């Protein structure tokens, strides 16, 4: 290690120590504190704000895992994080300060002391703690007197705002009912002195002991005006439900709690335009409602009581008036009216003996309007007449309990009669003589016996490869056949062309004949045949008569088709050899004939190539 290396190491160490010291100092600068707004006394009807602030020259990431250990308080929302930073000139140096604030919205659960314990705040890698805060909660008075608090995040500009007046009221009609009788529950929000910007439920109750049907509600479209204590309110229906008690006794519709955000005009045109007025949040709770539920009387209860409570009527219709034996006929029975039919049993149907009845299919619907629940339930039976004749359907009966009269009722409807004919058209209809044999009823045809093996392929010959091959073959062969046919016709029409095409074949045939003569040592005949093969080849090829084809004429014809001079020379030499050998006995040696034959074949082949 050199002296220079030691110097660099010392500088780096000094920088590292300096950085760590700066970090430590920055961490030492951090402060954390918590407070509630507007003050340590709150009421249990209005939410208030809890703020946790971390301040210092540099504030790293701030977080709180969870607000736990709250006494008599619950968290409505949060945390909402805000950050700010500023610079201040002190002497000659510019100093920076920053803060991060986490805000929660809390609500006291009831009057009495409440406490926010010391909170663990994670600031970067450090954990800091706030002081515990003690709060006194008083009973809130929903409405103008207690007044909704300012919006916890609204800031100082809301401090002088007059509180808006909001109420939440629940009503049940009726409060005394029979088991199964629908009860209409409506919750209304009343607001005065501001516009309701947002409404949300806080922990809605479960409504045990009731079968509940929600009813659609549109608060803005259905809002009305109301006057309470001489003060005008805008009334928003925020919930409608139909409650059907399922057991007797005293039942309670528990309190509903809602959080309402109200914005009101300040009268300042600038503030209203740019800041949309002033906002506040209120929490309101309805009073619980007690409902007395009476059991249905046993006296006068019909045996076929359907279980429905309300007021209903029944309609029964057959889908046709005429049918044949074994036809399927639809009987549709609809029950509709005020009340719930979800659990109602099917109406009583006393079908005649000669009609087979299948299990009904059931459909139904429920709707609620104007404080009433309306139900429709339809049963569809399939009837199959078994014998011809007139079938008179007895009335369909539906019994229910009428809560307005406190008595059981029964409604009935006759579906009418049905004329059933035999399975086959009657003799008159078919125009045959009376007494003709007719089928008494229709039935399916009998099963098929096994003859031969079972098929695993089924139809669909077009899916098999052989079918595609049978389609492809004629289509592919068609152009070939057409071309061959045309070629043949052309040869038939053009004799010169035909001779020319046949020339080589004929010449080779004659050379084979010459070869046979050579085998018989018939030299004169051999050379005559070879010479004839060559001459007639040229005559056929040029569509000329072989009679007047001299050496010179043959040479000219070959030259006219571009046959080169050496080949022409070989052709002429071969011809001269043959002519000479026919008359000169010394040249009839066998080996000589084989050379001549080979030469003649090569010449024909070479001439064919030069076409």
């Amino acid at each position, binding site marked *: 290690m050199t002296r220079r290396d030691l110097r660099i190491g010392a500088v780096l160490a000094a920088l590292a120590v300096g950085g760590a010291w700066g970090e430590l100092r920055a961490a030492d600068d951090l402060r954390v504190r918590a407070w509630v707004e507007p003050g340590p006394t709150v009421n249990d009807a209005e939410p208030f704000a809890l703020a946790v602030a971390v301040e210092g020259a540099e504030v790293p990431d701030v977080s709180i895992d969870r607000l736990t250990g709250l006494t008599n308080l619950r968290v409505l929302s949060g945390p909402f994080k805000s950050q700010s930073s500023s610079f201040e000139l002190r002497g000659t140096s510019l100093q920076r300060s920053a803060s991060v604030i986490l805000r929660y919205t809390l609500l006291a659960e009831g009057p009495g002391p409440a406490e926010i314990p010391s909170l663990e705040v994670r600031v970067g890698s450090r954990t800091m703690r706030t002081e515990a805060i003690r709060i006194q909660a008083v009973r809130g008075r929903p409405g103008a007197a207690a007044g909704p608090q300012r919006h916890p995040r609204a800031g100082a500009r809301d401090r002088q705002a007059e509180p808006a007046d909001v109420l939440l009221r629940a009503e049940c009609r009726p409060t005394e009912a029979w088991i199964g009788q629908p009860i209409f529950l409506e919750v209304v929000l009343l607001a005065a002195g501001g516009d309701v910007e947002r409404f949300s439920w806080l922990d809605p109750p479960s409504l045990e002991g009731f079968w509940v049907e929600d009813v659609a509600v549109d608060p803005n479209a259905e809002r009305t005006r109301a006057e309470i204590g001489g003060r005008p309110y805008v009334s928003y229906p925020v919930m409608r439900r139909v409650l059907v008690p399922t057991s007797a006794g005293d039942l309670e519709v528990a309190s509903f709690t809602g959080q309402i955000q109200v914005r009101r005009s300040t009268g300042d045109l600038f503030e209203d335009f740019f800041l949309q007025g002033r906002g506040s949040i209120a929490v309101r709770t309805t009073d619980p409602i007690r409902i007395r539920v009476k059991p249905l009387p046993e006296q006068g209860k019909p045996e076929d009581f359907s279980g429905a409570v309300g007021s209903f009527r029944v309609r029964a219709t057959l889908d046709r008036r005429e049918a044949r034996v074994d036809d399927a006929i639809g009987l549709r029975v609809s029950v509709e009216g005020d009340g719930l039919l979800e659990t109602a049993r099917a109406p009583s149907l006393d079908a005649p003996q000669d009609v087979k009845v299948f299990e009904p299919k059931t459909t139904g619907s429920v709707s609620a309007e104007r404080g009433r629940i309306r139900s429709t339930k339809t049963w569809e039976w399939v009837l199959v007449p078994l014998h011809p004749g007139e079938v008179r359907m007895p009335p369909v009966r539906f019994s229910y309990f009428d809560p307005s009269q406190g008595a059981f009722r029964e409604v009935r409807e006759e579906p009418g009669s049905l004329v059933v004919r035999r399975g086959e058209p009657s003799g008159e209809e078919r125009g045959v003589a009376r007494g003709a044999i007719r089928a008494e009823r229709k039935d399916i045809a009998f*099963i098929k*016996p096994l003859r031969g093996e*079972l*098929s*695993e392929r*089924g139809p*669909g010959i*077009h899916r098999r490869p052989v079918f595609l091959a049978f389609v492809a073959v004629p*289509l592919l062969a068609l152009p070939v056949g057409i071309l061959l046919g045309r070629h043949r016709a052309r040869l038939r029409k053009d004799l010169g062309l035909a001779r020319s095409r046949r020339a080589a074949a004929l010449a080779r045939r004659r050379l084979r004949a010459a070869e046979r003569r050579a085998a018989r040592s018939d030299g004169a005949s051999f050379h005559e045949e070879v010479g004839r093969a060559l001459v007639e080849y040229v005559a056929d090829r040029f569509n000329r008569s072989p009679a007047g084809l001299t050496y010179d004429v043959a040479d000219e014809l070959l030259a006219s088709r571009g046959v080169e001079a050496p080949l022409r020379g070989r052709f002429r030499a071969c011809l001269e050899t043959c002519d000479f050998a026919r008359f000169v006995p010394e040249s009839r040696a066998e080996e000589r004939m084989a050379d001549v034959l080979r030469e003649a074949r090569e010449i024909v082949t070479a001439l064919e190539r030069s076409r």
Partner: protein
Amino acid sequence: MRLLAGILPIALAAASPSLAESPEEIFSRGNSAYEAGRFDEAAEAYRSVLRYGVRDARVEYNLGCAAFRTGRLGESVLHFERAARLAPGDPDVRTNLELVRSRCFDRVEEPEIAAPVRWVRAAQDRLGPDRQAVALLVLLWAACAWIVARAWRPEGWTPAAAWVLAALLAAGGAVGASWLSTRSRIEAPVAVVLESSIEVRAGPGEHNAVLFTAHEGLGLSIREERSGWLQVSLPNGLNGWVPASAVGRV
């Protein structure tokens, strides 16, 4: 090794419908059960035959009969429909299908079909797609052979020869169009409701509104499939989505 040799056949027998019997034997056993009035047993035998991969109209037809006897209208319609596709010209299949449909709850108004179209369809069904395919093949070969023959003949195309070719091509075109039409009709994707009733919804999912209720045995044309749901339509224009598990595909 002996133990393995003993276990293997048992395992194979459990995995396949019945290794001991051939499809034909099981089919005959089903027929015997049907004739003895044991319709459930017969239906199970026919189903076993189908598990072999057999595509025979007789099996589908007999299974349709057995399902009808045991009160399963939807399954009966499904198998008669399949039998009608495998043997379009079989009058028993048509008769049974018509009768079983008359016992189903739903009645769908079908658009009126002109008499000539009905006649053509009846003729197409009697012939079936395979016979039409063979006829098309014969006409194709005849037309190609005629063209080649005229190319080889020295006199070429005379007016009479051209008329013969035109007739062959016209006949081939008609048979080909009929074949394609029969195929598209027979191979159209169709489903049959198997449950006593199903709710046909506006979209593929239980959260969608119920448009109408379809009952057992109703035939539905399949238009689309999406994540276990089928978009189906009826001849009267109604359409919606049903769970694929509630219907059987023809």
